[in-house]
């Protein structure tokens, strides 16, 4: 029998932090057979990446494997000398990281970078270049010769990741480690890269360790999956049965956190996992999940369960047979759902355009976008990078001035394009929750000051009244008081975003723009933040413009959805209809690109090529270069108008809505 490609045997890894060793992986054991794809999932800080680095003995300077054995291809990694280790990394293992832009050398042409791998193996220059072209061809790059002449920065993110994968596979390694390989990519590009990995898996007999926080992707790609929690493997088994019938409360909780199609803000809240994961390196007595587990008993607090064999799968839970019945952690009380009032729109955007000057060229980031927003309504704004989502948000808020012909009206009054010219009341009424709290919260100020100052300036309160309002506000965003004297650095991602939300609500806004507020958060934290936003909307009667690339998230929160492509609205309508169809071909592609947790998928629509640059948008319909349903020359010459596809539902396509509906599958 052949050796396992990778085997971890009771491995401990610890980091030395300020003189104290913190154990971040404890007794980790798993094995990946030859040609097998193994998924490792878990939330941030659980030790996924540490496991990946340990597998090639490439831990940071302050980290060390303190116990256990790691074997690659049957060779013991721990007893290897530097030279043997180097040759192993050169031939047997390859790794692909999250950010391809940083993994490729920016000053060496792509072809040469790949060729180096072959040259190291003793190949001649000519032959190496020929092999490189062949590798690029195998990762489905259509014009290898041209790509080889390019520098990495001249390629898009999806292309870069493909090049990185080509380099990794160049030596036909026994083990390929993929650490969140699609996390930074757009959904349609992500879908393409995942397709590629799926195909390559069959072509090469390489074993894959696939690390991701995205359960749906793991469900699609991996044969077996391990769930990591706080450095401990809590459950492992064949992917399908693990996700269909999880046997550990943590896995159950994680799966429930995912926004599902049937969940809508009006009828229910999302499940969350209460509490926080323990601090990395903490070693509580008993089961590590006790503090957050609704099934926990005295026994769980006392003794840690072993990894129990359930016949081909394992669970580290005393009560694994009860896991599926884990009581649901849902909001206790749900605020009365808010019915958008038909009193006329609170916000109207009319032909909003924004043109940037790049040299002597015009970059049209937004082109005549028109929409309106009812009081208490949520408009979901969906699109990939470069679609103009963020430009729309910034123009609305007056942070960048829209083109002169654009009009933004609030309560029937036209707002000046720049924030400086707007009256204080209008500025207060229109607030934002930024995507990245690290940039949005001033790192020099304590939480108390961050929120307090916003209250003071926006509601004019002072003294005791301010203090009272501050406490009420932090309570409404469920931020414990003890964080008030701390700086943002000391807060977790979810807590930081709560501070940002509290700040946005300090002046009783009417419209809050949420710019991908959960894109950097773990699923359980994301669910809590989405619930919070839904609750706040119900209690404060506020309207949201919710920007996201994640359709699942948008589906939960949005009443209406607008789909943007290259600065154009290509489809807008009530959420149910946008999901049900008829779809714009782009919307259809977006919907089918979302990985499904059940592992199955309907007919997949894959887009060819990359999003064109807004500097030189294609003539006619902006989507024609990638459209799988292009009907002919009319698409290249004439831009379609937004045409009615149902009540308040419009699609920008030459194909009539009835036909779009009919041939949907």
């Amino acid at each position, binding site marked *: 029998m052949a050796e396992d490609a990778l085997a971890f045997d009771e491995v401990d890894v610890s980091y030395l932090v300020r003189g104290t060793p913190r154990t971040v992986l404890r007794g980790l054991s798993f094995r990946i057979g030859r040609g097998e794809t193994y998924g490792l999932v878990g939330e941030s800080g659980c030790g996924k990446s540490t496991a990946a680095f340990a597998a090639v003995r490439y831990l940071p300077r302050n980290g060390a494997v303190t116990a256990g054995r790691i074997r690659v291809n049957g060779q013991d990694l721990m007893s290897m000398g530097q030279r043997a280790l180097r040759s192993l990394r050169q031939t047997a293992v390859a790794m692909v990281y999250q950010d391809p832009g940083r993994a490729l050398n920016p000053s060496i042409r792509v072809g040469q970078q790949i060729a180096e791998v072959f040259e190291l193996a003793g190949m001649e220059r000519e032959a190496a270049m020929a092999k490189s072209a062949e590798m690029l061809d195998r990762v489905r790059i259509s014009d290898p010769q041209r790509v080889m002449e390019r520098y990495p920065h001249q390629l898009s993110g999806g292309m870069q990741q493909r090049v990185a994968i080509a380099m990794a596979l160049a030596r036909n390694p026994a083990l390929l480690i993929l650490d969140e390989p699609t996390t930074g990519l757009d959904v349609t590009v992500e879908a393409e890269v995942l397709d590629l990995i799926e195909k390559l898996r069959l072509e090469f007999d390489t074993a894959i360790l696939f690390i991701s926080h995205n359960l749906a992707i793991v469900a699609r790609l991996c044969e077996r999956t391990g769930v990591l929690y706080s450095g401990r493997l809590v459950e492992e088994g064949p992917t399908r049965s693990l996700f269909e019938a999880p046997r550990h409360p943590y896995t159950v909780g994680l799966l429930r956190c995912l926004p599902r199609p049937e969940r809508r803000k009006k009828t229910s809240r999302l499940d969350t996992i209460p509490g926080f994961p323990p601090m990395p390196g903490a070693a509580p007595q008993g089961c590590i999940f006790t503090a957050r587990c609704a099934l926990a008993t005295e026994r769980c607090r006392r003794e840690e369960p072993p990894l129990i064999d359930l016949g081909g799968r394992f669970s580290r839970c005393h009560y694994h047979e009860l896991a599926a019945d884990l009581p649901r952690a849902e909001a206790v009380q749900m605020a009365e759902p808010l019915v958008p009032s038909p009193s006329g729109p609170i916000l109207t955007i009319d032909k909003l355009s924004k043109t940037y000057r790049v040299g002597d060229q015009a970059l049209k980031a937004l082109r005549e976008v028109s929409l309106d927003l009812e009081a208490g309504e949520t408009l979901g704004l969906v699109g990939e990078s470069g679609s103009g989502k963020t430009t729309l948000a910034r123009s609305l808020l007056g942070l960048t001035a829209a083109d002169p012909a654009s009009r933004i009206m609030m309560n029937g009054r036209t707002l000046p394009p720049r924030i400086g010219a707007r009256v204080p009341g209008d500025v207060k009424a229109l607030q934002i929750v930024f995507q990245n709290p690290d940039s949005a919260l001033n790192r020099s100020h304590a939480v108390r000051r961050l929120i307090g*100052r916003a209250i003071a*300036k926006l509601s004019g309160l002072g003294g005791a009244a301010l203090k009272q309002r501050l406490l009420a506000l932090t309570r409404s965003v469920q931020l414990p008081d003890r964080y008030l004297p*701390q700086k943002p650095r000391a807060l977790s991602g979810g807590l930081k975003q709560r501070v940002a939300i509290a700040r946005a609500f300090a002046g009783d806004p009417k419209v809050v723009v949420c710019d991908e507020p959960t894109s950097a958060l773990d699923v359980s934290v994301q669910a809590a933040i989405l619930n919070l936003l839904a609750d706040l909307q119900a209690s404060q009667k506020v309207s949201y413009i919710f920007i996201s690339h994640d359709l699942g998230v948008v589906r939960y929160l949005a009443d209406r959805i607008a789909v943007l492509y290259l600065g154009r609205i290509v489809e807008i309508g009530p959420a149910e209809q946008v999901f049900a169809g008829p779809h714009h071909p782009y919307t259809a592609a977006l919907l089918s690109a979302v990985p499904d947790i059940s592992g199955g998928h309907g007919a997949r629509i894959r887009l060819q090529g990359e999003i064109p640059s807004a500097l030189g948008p294609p003539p006619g319909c902006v989507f024609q270069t990638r459209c799988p349903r292009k009907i002919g020359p009319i698409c290249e010459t004439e831009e379609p108008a937004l045409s009615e596809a149902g009540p308040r539902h419009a699609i920008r396509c030459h194909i009539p809505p009835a036909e779009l509906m009919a041939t949907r599958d």
Partner: protein
Amino acid sequence: MSETSAAPTIVPEITVAQERRERLAQLLASPTFLIGLAIVAFWSACAIFGHSVVPYDPYADDMLNTLLAPSREHPFGTDSLGRDVLSRVITGSRDILTVAPLATLLGTLGGTVLGLFMGYSRGLLDEVVSRIVDALLALPTVIVALLALVALGTSKMTVVLVIAFGFAPIIARTVRAAVLTERELDYVAAAKLRLEGPLHIMFAEILPNVAPPILVETTVRLGYAIFTVATLSFIGFGIQPPSPDWGLSISANYGLIGGGYWWTVLFDGLAIASLVIGVNLLADGLEGVVNG
């Protein structure tokens, strides 16, 4: 919905005071910083208390004991007027350690304000001031200072002002560069969205975040200031006699080296060198902690 209910937390809770203490501990663990601190502290102590501990009056001539070689009575020897060199080296730190830090401080203040305005407003102000700054940076500091001192007359105050004026553009450039990256961060947009004025945004929001590089730049500048003051004194436009200032002493005595009276200049030279090295070590240590 009770993400916040359980006891263990993922992040170590660090209060503002704790963070400060941690930074300080990091500084005090850096040998570079400690050595620099020791040297600067030594000369500062000399500047403050030197006059009351020296064995001889640094100004007192003793025409019977001129140019004595180092001995038990005069460990560093005596100069051409019979003054005790040790006493003069110890007390000689006072003038330079008032003029140089004062000049650096003034230059930093001016440069910081200028840099904040340039970086935050960008536009025409930035464009114009940047060109002026570039022009100023092209001129050699000592020559400009010299001309200015000739025109304005020599006094400690003019030396301070002239050096400060020379440093402000350099500091301004550092500050401007830091502000340019900060102003693009969302917290600046957030401040605008709660109706903060530009002054508040510049001084209360951005300034605390650009303070660390300013602190490092200031310390580096202090080293240059000490050197400049010594140079100006040497050529007669800085500290004026009868001060026991180092640069001045070297200037008065360097003609004697040929006669073998090396002790009249060596110790002043070493003093200048050690102080500049000390300040630079301080700057290195600070930079190490600031830039992680």
